[in-house]
């Protein structure tokens, strides 16, 4: 078996299929390293998102390989030999599995180049997520081989791939949309698909329960593929379907509803810089701390210079972004007045903070008038009020943004002039009032800066 496996690895299409998968996967990964740089879990989930292309590719590759015997017309010759069919297909199936697992692992390894230098948090779940992804490719390859053997036609491989996209990608998509429209949690059946097309927030992980049930189901699916491939008689074919049916029946009730995302307290743990006013970021963003500490302290200093009761420490906002929120996420603690809670800066391609465009300091200053109230987006007056407040801190008129209308520009400029025209004590009183209102989840104070009636 060892020598035959080597022959199959050398001569069969298995390595070709795996190489194609590797090139596509690594290419896609490298083309957008911002998506995972410095974060293990994001790297693992990027790989699982890519399965939308790789999984059908493994199906097609398997089908191509499964059709080989019919294409080469070896049936006559092999029928006269003693080795049973299931033993004969084993090295071919093993070659495909080895090649696909190697390709998927290599994609992950390529990604680690952008993760290892800056990653401060290594969740073991990221390895589990990758392992489940590799297993899903094996299952796809073996099921593809079985189908390619059963229907040895040229169109089988592409047709199977399209079916794979539909079943593993489009169907879950459709189910998710339906669940959202009906305001239900996403059904557990979604997790039968190994594809995590919609990603994950930095503060999220995939629970062991999801990984284990998926492993059970995908291993059962792989077993069915292999048994179908090795089945020599009708009864063998009927028995071969059993593992997938049983595996699905056992795994499905154990899978949680609401999708694969779960809050990861480990990722959200704080890492602080105490040299000066305290600045903290989440552990998963530890690499950003050196870049964040400077601007954060600058912002704290500017606030304490002008704003009575200004915050004395800055802490990263660790709330999951709204697009990734699931019902199970913990409700946020209200932000205390002494703490500036800011959103982490954009992460660049290498895993360090991308501060280009000077957006970060205004963003930090603005955060003094921000509270997590769990509502929808702020109305425009509140947003512009915050712009005026920020400008007041810096002492310079607000720089108009490209997307503001002329009326908005005039409104903001007018509001700023009106504010700085007041006596300094009154200015301070208004800003403190606006902040107290904002932290108490009222937007009156900020709106009043824009000329709304002050109650």
């Amino acid at each position, binding site marked *: 078996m060892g020598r035959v496996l080597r022959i199959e690895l050398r001569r069969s299409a298995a390595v070709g299929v795996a190489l*194609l998968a590797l090139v*596509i996967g690594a290419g*896609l990964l490298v083309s*957008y390293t911002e998506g995972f740089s410095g974060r293990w879990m994001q790297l693992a989930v990027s790989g699982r*998102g*890519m399965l*939308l*292309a790789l999984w*059908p*590719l493994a199906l*097609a590759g398997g089908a191509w390989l499964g059709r080989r015997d019919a*294409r*080469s*017309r070896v049936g006559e010759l092999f029928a006269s030999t003693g080795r049973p069919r299931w033993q004969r297909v084993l090295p071919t199936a093993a070659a495909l599995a080895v090649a696909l697992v190697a390709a998927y692992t290599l994609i992950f390894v390529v990604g680690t180049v952008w993760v290892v230098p800056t990653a401060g948090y290594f969740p073991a779940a990221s390895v589990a997520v990758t392992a489940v992804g590799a297993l899903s490719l094996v299952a796809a390859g073996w099921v593809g081989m079985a189908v390619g053997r059963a229907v040895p*036609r*040229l*169109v089988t*491989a*592409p*047709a199977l*791939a*399209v079916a794979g*996209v*539909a079943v593993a*990608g489009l169907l879950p998509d*459709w189910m998710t949309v339906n669940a959202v429209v009906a305001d239900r949690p996403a059904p557990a059946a979604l997790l039968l698909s190994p594809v995590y*097309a*919609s990603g994950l927030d930095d503060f999220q992980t995939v629970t062991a329960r999801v990984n284990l049930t998926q492993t059970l189901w995908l291993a059962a699916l792989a077993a069915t593929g292999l048994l179908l491939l090795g089945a020599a008689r009708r009864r063998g074919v009927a028995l071969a379907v059993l593992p997938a049916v049983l595996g699905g029946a056992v795994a499905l009730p154990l899978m949680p509803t609401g999708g694969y995302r779960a809050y990861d307290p480990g990722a959200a743990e704080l890492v602080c810089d105490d040299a000066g006013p305290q600045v903290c970021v989440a552990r998963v963003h530890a690499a950003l701390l050196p870049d964040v500490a400077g601007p954060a302290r600058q912002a704290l200093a500017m606030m304490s210079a002008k704003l009575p009761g200004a915050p004395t420490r800055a802490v990263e906002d660790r709330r999951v972004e709204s697009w990734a929120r699931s019902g199970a996420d913990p409700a946020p603690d209200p932000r205390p007045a002494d703490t500036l809670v800011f959103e982490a800066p954009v992460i660049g391609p290498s895993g360090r903070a991308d501060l280009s465009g000077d957006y970060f300091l205004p963003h930090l200053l603005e955060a003094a008038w921000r509270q997590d109230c769990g509502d929808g987006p702020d109305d425009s007056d509140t947003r512009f009020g915050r712009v005026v407040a920020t400008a007041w801190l810096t002492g310079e008129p607000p720089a108009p943004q490209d997307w503001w209308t002329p009326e908005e520009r005039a409104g903001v400029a007018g509001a700023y002039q009106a504010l700085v025209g007041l006596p300094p004590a009154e200015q301070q009183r208004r800003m403190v009032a606006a902040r107290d209102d904002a932290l108490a989840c009222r937007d009156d104070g900020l709106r009043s800066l824009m000329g709304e009636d002050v109650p």
Partner: protein
Amino acid sequence: MRWLRLYLRSRRVGLALAISTATAALVWLLVLVYSDAGTIDARGVSLTVMLAVAAFAATLGGADDALDHTASINWPVRRAVHLLLAAAAIVAPLLLTTVTDVRFEPLTVVLRNTAGLLGLTALGAALLGAARSWIAPLTWTLISVLPFVGPSTKPATQVASWLVQPAGTTAATACAAVLAVTGLAAYTMWGCPRRPAAETAPDH
């Protein structure tokens, strides 16, 4: 008419036609029943067209290309006509849907993607043989359906994901045109590579 029938049978065109039509019908039916959308977008169009093209890929080579090659007919013309008729046969059922409630839209995307994918397949058939000609269109289509691949303003991305760019994107249209013309030219001039005598198993 008789030789035409024989030719179509020898290339198994009937099967290809059945598969491509059935694919379009199935996609149309699924969207009609399970979706409120009236439009099958560029992703759906690409997957449908790619499968239809793959079905026709099997007809690009005969049972024995070397033997075919010795026939004293004008192969280049026949190959070009074969390819163009295949394109027509793929587009026809998709066009038919424009009179129904669920449509493969927009028309220019349907035409662009069919031309590009069929050209890519023909190019693959000329270089690797009909048996492997589906690999490149399948791979490109799979990359295009990824959720983070979409309309873009960067020309390089527009070319890489030409299948899902909106109608009228110059780079995407140019990419499809280049594929179509190169594929048509290569396949018309060379046809499938003549396999060595040892490997004459037909690929259907």
